């Protein structure tokens, strides 16, 4: 099985493609169906951010290993306008667009690890991870 896949993001139709790709990859790792939904939803939120603010970008999913933990890594990257105040953007209900402002903080709650790096004028990179729970499967 391929352990890395990327989806170019150019329009809102790519949101569906990206979350399907993420779900496919996560399924191979043996995540539960609830976890698959959480991962797909988190991908949907971060990719929608790209479409809404940066227009173009890329979503990559990758299988990662850390010690005896296995999981999925999701990287959403764009060369868009960047986020001037990340602290503010990570607050529930804060939005400069037309969304509910739950996208980034929401995605963080759905995943195990969440990291965001952004530079104004350069772009934004969101890295999220979720680990397979061994005691469940």
């Amino acid at each position, binding site marked *: 099985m391929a352990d890395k896949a990327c989806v170019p993001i150019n329009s809102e*139709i790519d949101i569906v493609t990206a979350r399907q790709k993420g779900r496919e990859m996560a399924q191979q790792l043996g995540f539960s169906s609830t976890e698959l939904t959480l991962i*797909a939803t988190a991908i*949907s939120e971060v990719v929608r951010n790209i479409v809404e603010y940066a227009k173009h970008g890329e979503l990559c999913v990758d299988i990662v290993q850390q010690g005896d933990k296995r999981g999925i890594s999701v990287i959403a990257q764009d060369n868009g306008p960047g986020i001037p105040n990340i602290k503010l953007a990570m607050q529930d209900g804060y939005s400069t667009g037309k*969304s509910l402002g739950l996208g980034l903080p929401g995605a963080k*709650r759905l995943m195990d690890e969440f990291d965001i790096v952004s530079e104004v004028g350069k772009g934004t990179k969101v890295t999220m991870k979720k680990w397979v729970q061994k005691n469940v499967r």
Partner: protein
Amino acid sequence: MLVPILKQGDYLIASIQSELSDADLLKLRDDLVRRVSEFRSRGVIVDVTVLDVMDSFATRTLRSMAHMVMLRGAETVIVGIQPEVAFSMVQLGLRLEGVTTALDLEEGLSLLDHKIKGDNGLG
């Protein structure tokens, strides 16, 4: 992907058949609101059983649709939200405030009968 909208008596039933893009969702909302007027429908059921993701956009669109339908004097019931989707919506902090939900199509229809026709659902 087009969502078929069936007219059944006073009700409209929109049964989502596959994952929808944002544009598909907006089209569904607009079609339903228009048809409520066209058919003088009293109730609308949206079956989301096949959706395996309901993110902030989908939730917001369904909520606004229900409110628009309400302003046209009809009731909306969203049916078939999967357990995994419900779990993820709560984690994400999404709420369908002011929108009626039911387990499945059958429950949704009896809920509408009850609300609109005063049927107690027992007979």
